[in-house]
């Protein structure tokens, strides 16, 4: 983040401003390109807006009913099948930036959580339930279901593999 007069400017705003500068640059070089891309932009925006509203409604529901503390409470407590289940479901419903979870996972590892479960948790964080409508919109329902199921399966395979590599006796 960039600071101006002690106020932090979010990276998103900086990115948006950079894009506006690119547009301004092109406005002088090729104005017709800009008017054409604005047409595409508004077309895209109209198509996406209803999906976006749905996505934020889902986000609101998740923020209302799922608390990070609930995930933390069960994570690393269970072994075997339940351990896998908790890691997978915990990963899917966990919110926030991935690096925010690293210290907690490191702490849980010290308390006995296996590397396989940590990998499964981190991999399943890639499945964003509130964003699934977007995935369906762009790639279709079948694609979304197949991809999600395979990601869950591979989170277990990857967990086993990383665990084997890490804990291999040298």
């Amino acid at each position: 983040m960039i600071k101006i007069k002690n106020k932090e400017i979010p990276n998103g705003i900086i990115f948006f401003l950079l894009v506006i500068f690119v547009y301004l640059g092109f406005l002088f070089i090729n104005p017709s390109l800009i008017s054409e891309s604005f047409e595409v932009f508004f077309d895209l925006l109209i198509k996406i807006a209803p999906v976006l509203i749905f996505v934020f409604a889902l986000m609101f529901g998740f923020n209302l009913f799922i608390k990070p503390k609930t995930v933390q409470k069960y994570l690393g407590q269970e072994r075997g099948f339940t351990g896998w289940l908790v890691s997978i479901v915990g990963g899917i419903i966990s919110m926030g930036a991935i690096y925010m979870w690293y210290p907690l996972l490191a702490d849980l590892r010290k308390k006995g959580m296996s590397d396989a479960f940590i990998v499964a948790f981190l991999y399943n964080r890639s499945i964003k339930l509130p964003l699934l409508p977007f995935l369906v919109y762009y790639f279709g329902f079948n694609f979304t279901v197949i991809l999600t199921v395979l990601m869950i399966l591979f989170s277990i395979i990857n967990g086993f593999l990383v665990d084997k590599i890490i804990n291999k006796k040298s």
Partner: protein
Amino acid sequence: MKLSYQNVRKAGLKTRRSFTKVIPILLGVFLLVSLLKVAVPKEFYAKVFSGIPLIDSFIGAVLGSISAGHPLTSYIIGGELLDHGVSLIAVTAFLLTWVTVGIIQLPAESSILGKKFAIARNIISFVSAIVIAILVVIIISLI
């Protein structure tokens, strides 16, 4: 879970925070994608992607690995790539590594969870992205 006014308000504020954080990024990506759609000819993508599934999935996975940002951005870019004739296998690998491989987060992951763990996890996530992409396309073709 008790549904009190405070809980609803808290959830509303949290969602608003996400909304104000994501909207400038989304608008920026939409603007950039629109510009690229008009400025870059479709033939360009054919030059970047070979048309050979395995190589394309590898290229897609590399592009996704070095990119970072909100997953929504990867969906928009992936959708546009598909629209420009890039294969589903490449786009799937791209979407997967975007969210599962974190080159940018690697230093943080290494220092907190261990170097060996972070490297092994990211390499295995990269390889599995290609395998999943192949499987997704095979399964879809069978349906």
